């Protein structure tokens, strides 16, 4: 994929010269690093995740795949993010706070943040918009909050595998306002995918990237869904078990931050995203 080629750049307001200056400046000031990223990882808080998805094993499995940046994205919930961050401390693995929202339209949306504070603010909004239903363990599975060793803290009683009463547009706008980045998840999938549920990528809200699933590469995705070809595509393992880490996204960034990810998605200031499976 030619994500980040000069042709795809939207010219900065002003003139081309400004941009060149900016890029030269960027190259001079910033030492760029390569991150191998898996931005869609579930823990045992997600009822559909395997019981092995506990913080120390997540960290170990990610590192074993050469991954040094992950985002923890449980369904409508985020209680295990601090535990995974603690488990990763000192290992070189960066852990972004996040969650996977299920919108009113039953579209899954990755919500990624730099800080736990921003994530907590978003979680508070999500909590207000979840229906007051209890999880049925037999149907959906267990929802465990755990500590950094994977030890049991509590069961999450609310039903997490359901839609929040937030529209895709409201959700993307709120996440962006809170300093985060929202990415519609596994858009090629029939279940909870953007294209299956909404027919096509909505134009009433700014969408910065789309995620494709492990089931196809970005070339196949562009062939099957021509309308997504213009969007930056990330690929994720949607990791529900330890064997599902893909590490498909190679990001060239100055630091592991949402602002840098944005630049990489846009291919600006020498930041790049390369999907390794394409």
């Amino acid at each position: 994929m030619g994500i980040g080629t000069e042709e795809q750049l939207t010219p900065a307001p002003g003139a081309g010269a400004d941009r060149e200056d900016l890029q030269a400046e960027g190259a001079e000031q910033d030492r760029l690093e390569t991150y191998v990223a898996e931005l869609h990882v579930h823990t045992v808080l997600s009822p559909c995740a395997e019981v092995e998805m506990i913080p120390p094993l997540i960290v170990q499995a990610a590192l074993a795949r050469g991954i040094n940046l992950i985002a923890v994205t449980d369904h409508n919930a985020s209680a295990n993010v601090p535990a995974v961050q603690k488990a990763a401390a000192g290992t070189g693995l960066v852990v972004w706070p996040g969650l996977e929202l299920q919108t009113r339209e039953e579209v899954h949306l990755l919500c990624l943040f730099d800080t736990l504070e921003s994530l907590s603010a978003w979680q508070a909004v999500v909590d207000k918009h979840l229906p007051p239903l209890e999880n049925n363990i037999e149907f959906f599975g267990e929802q465990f909050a755990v500590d950094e060793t994977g030890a049991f803290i509590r069961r999450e009683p609310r039903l997490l595998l359901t839609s929040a009463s937030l529209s895709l547009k409201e959700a993307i706008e709120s996440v962006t306002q809170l300093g985060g980045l929202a990415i519609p998840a596994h858009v090629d999938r029939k279940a909870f995918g953007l294209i299956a549920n909404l027919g096509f990528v909505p134009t009433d809200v700014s969408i910065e990237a789309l995620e494709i699933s492990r089931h196809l590469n970005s070339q196949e995705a562009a062939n099957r869904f021509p309308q997504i070809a213009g969007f930056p595509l990330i690929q994720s393992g949607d990791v529900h078990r330890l064997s599902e880490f893909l590490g498909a996204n190679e990001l060239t960034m100055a630091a592991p931050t949402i602002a840098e990810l944005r630049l990489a998605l846009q291919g600006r200031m020498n930041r790049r995203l390369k999907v390794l499976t394409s």
Partner: protein
Amino acid sequence: MTLEEIIEKLELELLTRPKDFSQVVPSGGYAADLLSCVMTGAMHQGIWVTLQAHANIVAVGALLELSAIIITEGARPDQDTLAKANHEGLTLLATSQPTFNVVGRLWELGLKNS
């Protein structure tokens, strides 16, 4: 059967601009909430029953030149969506009834796909 009779008998709320609905005769009906299915499954000039109120329903409705979209279970499109529907000349109707009941009533009234 005309759209006018349907609106009256099902007590549907008109969300978009009024038209002469006595001249609109739906070709059939379709019910689903996955827009990708509707795009391939609903019939030209039919009625589509759904609880999706997302803006994309207007594009699907315009594509198929639907007689109307009935939005169920009290779901509400936002103002931009209504403006877009008016711009496209698409009729949006709303009800607090669930989809099952609406489809059942339409069937009773004789809107059956041949």
